[in-house]
């Protein structure tokens, strides 16, 4: 075992601020949607708009960080061991088996995570943020201070924005739960807070997997 600095400062800042912004946007957003009343419609709409600009700003920084550090490579999808990973979550985890894939600084994500996070980044966020921007720009002022209303129907913009929000909430629930499937229930969350995580050495992993196969034999 070795203690590794796996999540960099910006990465952790980005992760937690994005998490809190998305949760706050969900709380205010579903209030604007009419699902419940906490802040009151007026405040909820105002907060939602402010938080959305913060999130857009954060996303721009995050994209820059991913590109400049090469971290984007973490999300290159692979089918290798994807099946093993799925089988682990639906059966192996109950038998106390070890993760079939190894976590390293160069490959932080298992194949299932790669696929899901890539989907999150290139489908879910663009749908939600994109429809949100269309929502915000539905009415704008022209040079003469006259209000211009876009031709697209607001109902369909709202549909995509709500769909994105619902999927994000489902992602959130599963994501939070999955953090407990590390070595100990809190090891993953601790890593995302402190940046450090105890990772197995490569030979240890191989040994573990070999043991597992022997046991099952």
């Amino acid at each position: 075992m070795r203690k590794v600095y796996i999540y960099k400062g910006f990465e952790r800042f980005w992760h937690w601020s994005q998490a809190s912004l998305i949760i706050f946007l969900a709380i205010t957003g579903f209030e604007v949607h009419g699902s419940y009343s906490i802040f009151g419609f007026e405040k909820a709409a105002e907060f939602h708009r402010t938080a959305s600009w913060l999130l857009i700003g954060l996303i721009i920084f995050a994209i820059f960080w991913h590109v400049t550090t090469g971290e984007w490579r973490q999300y290159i999808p692979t089918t290798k061991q994807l099946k093993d990973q799925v089988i682990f979550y639906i059966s192996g985890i109950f038998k106390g088996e070890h993760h079939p894939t190894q976590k390293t600084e160069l490959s932080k994500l298992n194949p299932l995570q790669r696929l899901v996070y890539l989907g999150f980044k290139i489908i879910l966020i663009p749908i939600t943020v994109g429809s949100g921007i269309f929502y915000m720009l539905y009415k704008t002022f022209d040079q003469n201070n006259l209000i211009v209303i876009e031709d697209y129907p607001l109902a369909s913009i709202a549909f995509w924005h709500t769909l994105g929000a619902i999927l994000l909430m489902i992602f959130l629930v599963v994501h939070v739960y999955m953090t407990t499937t590390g070595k100990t229930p809190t090891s993953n969350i601790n890593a995302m807070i402190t940046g450090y995580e105890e990772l197995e050495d490569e030979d240890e992993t191989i040994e573990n997997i070999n043991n597992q196969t022997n046991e099952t034999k």
Partner: protein
Amino acid sequence: MVNVLHKEDNYNLKLEELKHKYALKEISSVNHALLPALDKEFKTPQEVTEACLSCHTETHKEVMASSHWNWERTAYVEGKGITSAGKKNVMNNFCLGTSSNEKSCSKCHIGYGMTSNHYDFNNSRNVDCMVCHDNSEEYLKGASMAGYPDRTVNLEKVAQSVGSPRKSNCGSCHYFGGGGNNVKHGDLDVAQNSCTREVDVHMGANGMNMECVACHTTKNHQISGKLYSVSPDNTNRATCEQCHTNTPHLRDVLNRHSSKVSCQACHIPVYAKVNSTKMSWKWSDAGKLKDGKPYEEEDSLGNHNYMSIKGSFVWKRNVKPDYIWFNGTAEQYLLGDTIKSVPVKMNTLHGSYKDHSSKIIPVKIHVGDQIYDKVYHRLVQPKLYGETEGDSAYWKDFKWKEAVEAGMKRSGLPVSGQYDFIQTEMYWPVNHMVSPKEQAVSCAECHTRNNGRLAKLTDFYMPGRDRNKILDGFGTVMFVLTILAVFGHAMVRILSSIWKNKYEKQIINYDDDKPTE
């Protein structure tokens, strides 16, 4: 901390400039009391008019080109062509119409001597300058005197007092339309002559104390602003934006609303704030007599709720408006029109969400029923007002058939003799009684799932009110299933680890049981 969280209201320079502009009241450049032309005894009101015209030599031409004088405007109406509409030929669901009742109705005509529809609209001597320009509060038109002043009026005093029209001048007719204070409009009440800011920010005595003509600007006696119970077209209107611009708020989210929402919709949360207004008038109840005599009944606030001559009424105070789309054009039911739908719309205000020039406006909808011809399928105009019994006037004889025949004879339209009562609706845009900004309609009063102020306007998507029910249902189910799945997965994990621990402990226990000593 409190200091950090406390946010001062930003200073709205636009509004301050307007307040400053209208705080300075105009002073007349002429004191009419000093003019020799007015320093004499007037025997008839026409003599006053002649005295006015001796200096204002061309003014009668302006007045006689106005709708206040002509009781009609000519305009192009979609589907009807060029039409002249106004009090002469438009019907309403209050006192129904002026035709055959001129002697009484012309109390609100700016002229003298209108006793029938054969009035000479070219006689400048009959122009009533005083009703608008009296600044002595002395002038009063007589009841059923064909527009002549009451006999008690001191014409010299009035003539010498004249000046720019005040609230009380405009109000002498516009407050009292329909036969009593605030009956028709709901937002024009004699109380506005001297009210608080809470009732009307513009007219309030402790507010800007503005006169009607401050907004209803006037050039050559053509007064801007119009009423859509008599006017069809979208011209020469008096609008909020003319002073306040279309971006009056400091917050853009509010300014953006103005593309689809009129100022009035948010800033007039209720109308009829002081005295009640008439919401319903059923002519079908008219004609009940006690001991052969007509009678009246009053509600708890002292408003008539029954009159034998008119029928039954419903009055309301502090009324939340209804809301409709309106693009500035309208159509009126003119005497002789065929009934197209029930309830009969006395006036139709055009507009829809899809129409780019439409906005949501607040309206008072006055409902009622009134007499119509079952065979010709049109509303009929009965003769209501009469001097004596046996003159076939309904208000004296209580006989519908005779009253209708006498009323319709004048219009030249045939009648069948078969009448019944039909439901009617009339739309009154609410424009006055603007509340202080603190009392404006709040966001959540419209942006709410149920029973919002705009619940009846369903032709557009409004956040907070509307949603895609299928998506919401699907989303809720998926979210709940996810939580259940996660919960189930966690349970299996916990149970299996407990089971495994037990199993391991059993082995250890087994070892422990061995005697080690």
